[in-house]
């Protein structure tokens, strides 16, 4: 296991504790694989430059 992989496992365990979730050891590879996909795709979105005043699509109407 590389240092990055170890860090992600640590993050998942910490996240599960914070959210009150139980992740059995057998589920860990699948949870991890799914989170890796989300983070990879999230990075693609995050890298796209947008100005600070750009509004999100979800705007609450009072």
């Amino acid at each position, binding site marked *: 296991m590389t240092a990055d992989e170890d860090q992600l496992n640590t993050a998942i365990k910490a996240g599960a504790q914070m959210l009150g979730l139980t992740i059995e050891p057998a589920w860990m590879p*699948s949870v991890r694989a799914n989170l890796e996909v989300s983070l990879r795709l*999230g990075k*693609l979105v995050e890298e796209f430059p947008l100005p600070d005043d750009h509004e999100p699509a979800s705007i609450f109407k009072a």
Partner: protein
Amino acid sequence: MNQPASSKPDGADVTTLTAAEIAQGVASGRLRASTVVADTLARIAKDNPLLNAFTDVTAERAINRARDIDTTIAAGKPVGPLAGVPFAVKNLFDVKGLPTRAGSKINRELAPAARDAVLIERLEAAGAILVGALNMGEYAYDFTGENVHDGPSRNPHDTTRMTGGSSGGSGGAAAGQLVPLTLGSDTNGSIRVPSSFCGLFGLKPTYGRLPRTRSFPFVFALDHLGPLARSPRDLALSYDAMQGFDAGDGACVERPAEPVTSELGKGVAGLHVAIAGGYFRKGLCAEGIEAVARVARALGATQELELPEVARARAAAYVITTTEGGSLHLDRLRKRPQDFDPATRDRLIAGSMVPAPLVDKAQKFRRWYRARTLELFEKVDVIIAPATPCVAPKLGEQIIKIDGVEMPLRANIGIYTQPISFIGLPVAAVPVPLSPLPIGVQIIAAPWREDIVLRVAQHLADSGTAVAPSPPSR
């Protein structure tokens, strides 16, 4: 007063008729609603054990409702445009008296719904008859139509293959001629994918057009409801019956109904049609390439255009989906993780851990992508794109091979649908009847132009380019 005849129009098997044909037969008195329902229930009893499309059959309710319609007609009173048309709904719609299971084990322990979903009420107000609830992927987080609790819905054209999901039963029931009309939901493609795999016409309306009131959610920011059928006219008839504001859905837009059925025959003259290139040309199987080419030829489309930053749009839809889903189910994940489909559970757990800045950025990007994409519709009326990268895969398949490249199947079935629903554009999926399996093409227009996508779908049906193939006889 005309006494309704018990004979069927031209001696046809009622279950092979379209919704429009049934409604016309019932309204004219050539066909009894009770006959339609009896034949439909018999067809479900015969074919559902194999297709596994229905999880609940509301037989008594349907028989009573058909009797009421026949009585109304016998009394010479008017009936609605869908009089006597049997329909069924994905089991995330509330059906009075049934727990809304949403494909899950956990939700079937809920109390029975006290009232039907708004769209069911509207279809029944138009004379349609609910006959049951349909199989679906757990909590709609699915593109396959497989379900570990209820078993997979099976593709009527080849029962060893997937229907597509998550509205799998909606695809199987309509394509298998168990009913002429079904309702599904589409967050990232769940109406268009089963339409493609099962060879159906499907309508994903503009986001906010049809109210989702009293249906079980998946991703509020992206959820749409809509019909699947074997003809574009049936989509139009049902869509017209379902339009209109309802305050129970916070995203539903206060916009007057804009009927489309009367527009269907207007043809495509004057419409500027373009083909989605770039992203939508990559990873597409030979059948998909052929289907898009046939539709393009039938519409005289030669111009290709590229949607801006499509891969990023798909990524942003993915991030919003997984995080909203993870949040929605967080408490169930805490308390009953063993009762989920493991594949759904692990995706939702992962979704709950995605850092918040990525979600915020995805919503900001959504606004940017919407603005750039809408600019394209200043120059074109319609964009055509493949619906799925492949024809219906075998049940249980995990890997798809396209152009010799192996890819994970589940993550890639929605690559062409996700960037379109991400900004709520209206889409008609149309079936191109290739052999041995059909495949769908998306007809996409600017927001609120359901009239255009259905006009195009009707033109393609009239020209024989888009046809819902009949299932093999069993």
